[in-house]
Every structure is written in C-alpha cells, then in structure tokens.
C-alpha cells in the first residue's frame, strides 16, 4: 500500500490471554515469572501477572506489518508506561493499536501509534519508521 502523510491507520485489536504469555515466553526466551506467576508478580509489587512489554511491542509490529504489507522497519521504539494486566480467565484482555502516518520523506514513512488496553494507554511515544 502507499503510505501518505496524515493517513489514519485502522485500529487493530488483538487478544492477550495467559496462554498468549506462555507461548510468547517460550518463543522469545523471556521466562520472567512476573509474566506467568501471580505469586511472584504480587510479591514484587505488581497488580498481578502482566504481559511482556515486548509482547505488546510485537503486537504493534504485527499491526504495522498488516497496515504496510510487510514494509521494512527501519526504527521502532516505545516506553512501557502502564502494565497490561492479564487476568487468569478465558477472556484475558486485549491490546488495540492505532496509528497515523506522520510524514513520508526520502522514502521513509514515520508512523506514530496509540496503544491501549482497556481504556488505558500502555505505551509511551510508540513510533515506527518504515521504508515507504
């Protein structure tokens, strides 16, 4: 697809369950128990098991790839400002990614993103640049 400055990219919502976290832990090698054990998560002061920040970021990368038909990513960054708490039930929670094409210059498109879980933003200043 052709990316044009100002284009709004349709929001994508992805489910996040405990099973997603277990699977991501295995695939990424991140076995931090705060992502699978309520006991450990609460002992270190978290509200409960939280998603890997990198899992949320991987979902953002998925959205960008879907919007851009797999455009080559040049830069990608985000701050993890609020945890995605994942309850131990069948529904879990979800992450919704929306984006705006900020600029297209010299063959590179800059996309700013909004990433929420429930009604809370979970990433700070998420931004990706891709070859347009």
């Amino acid at each position, binding site marked *: 697809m052709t990316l044009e400055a100002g284009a709004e990219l349709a929001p994508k919502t992805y489910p996040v369950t405990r099973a997603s976290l277990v699977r991501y832990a295995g695939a990424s090698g991140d076995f931090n128990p*705060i992502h699978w054990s309520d006991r450990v998560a609460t002992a270190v*002061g978290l509200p409960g098991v939280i998603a890997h920040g990198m899992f949320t*970021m991987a*979902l953002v*990368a*998925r959205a960008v790839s879907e919007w851009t038909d797999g455009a080559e990513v040049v830069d990608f960054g985000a701050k993890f400002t609020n945890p995605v708490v994942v309850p131990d039930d069948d529904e879990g929670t979800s992450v919704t990614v929306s984006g705006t094409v900020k600029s297209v210059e010299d063959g590179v498109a800059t996309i700013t993103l909004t990433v929420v879980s429930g009604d809370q933003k979970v990433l700070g200043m998420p931004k990706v640049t891709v070859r347009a």
Partner: protein
Amino acid sequence: MAVDGSLVGRAFPPTRPYRVTDEKVREFAAATGVSWESGDPVPATFPIVLAFDAMNAFLDDVEVELLRIVHGEQKFSYARPIAPGDVLTATLSVASLRQIGGNDIIGTVSEITDDSGAVVCTTSATLVHRAAEVA
C-alpha cells in the same frame, strides 16, 4: 541492593553465535498470532531473542534477579532486515545508570552483528530494577 555505578561503559562478552532458522521465526511469529511462511519478512522485534539472551548473561554477572526487572523502554534501529540463515551475536554494554526512589534505572545497548562482523541491528533497553520492599 543497588547496582554498582562503575558498570557504566562496560561491554559484556558477546553471546554465542545464533543461527536464525525458518522454524524459530515461524514459532516467534505464531506467538503473536502471525502465520509466517518462508520468505516473509522476519518480525521486527525478533532481535529481542538475542538481546534478551545478552541481558540474562548481564543480570547473572551483576547478580540481579530477573523477577526484579521491569522493562522501561526498548528501541530498535535496523541496518538491514534479519533473514533466516543469518548467524548473529549480541554484545551488550551498559550505557547509563541512575537511581530513582530506590530503583536502579539501567540503560543498556546491544549491538547485533552478523558473522561478517557487520551491525544488523542496534537495540537499546531501559531496565527498571525494582528495589526489594523494606520490611
């Protein structure tokens, strides 16, 4: 226990060479709900597999428990796309260290290079080392 400030600027030994395979990329993509076929672009956050390995070795070295780490920020800058067949190594250095409210804020940079020594991706992570609760 606070992390020693003299770590700043220190580079840790490179991780063992890692061969990117179709099977591993497919597994990683599937974990984010993507059905990946050979020839598709490798997911953008895939280099975390190497960077995380480098971080684990670093945490072991400085005797910090992984469960006390929360991720603060992550950035990737790609020199070229990663592809199956690449043999990659991550080298982590400590870029910055601050203490805020009893927590260590550790800035790390991992350079991911291929077997020719060329940089493929540079990724920086901010790790928040949460202080143990005071009894």
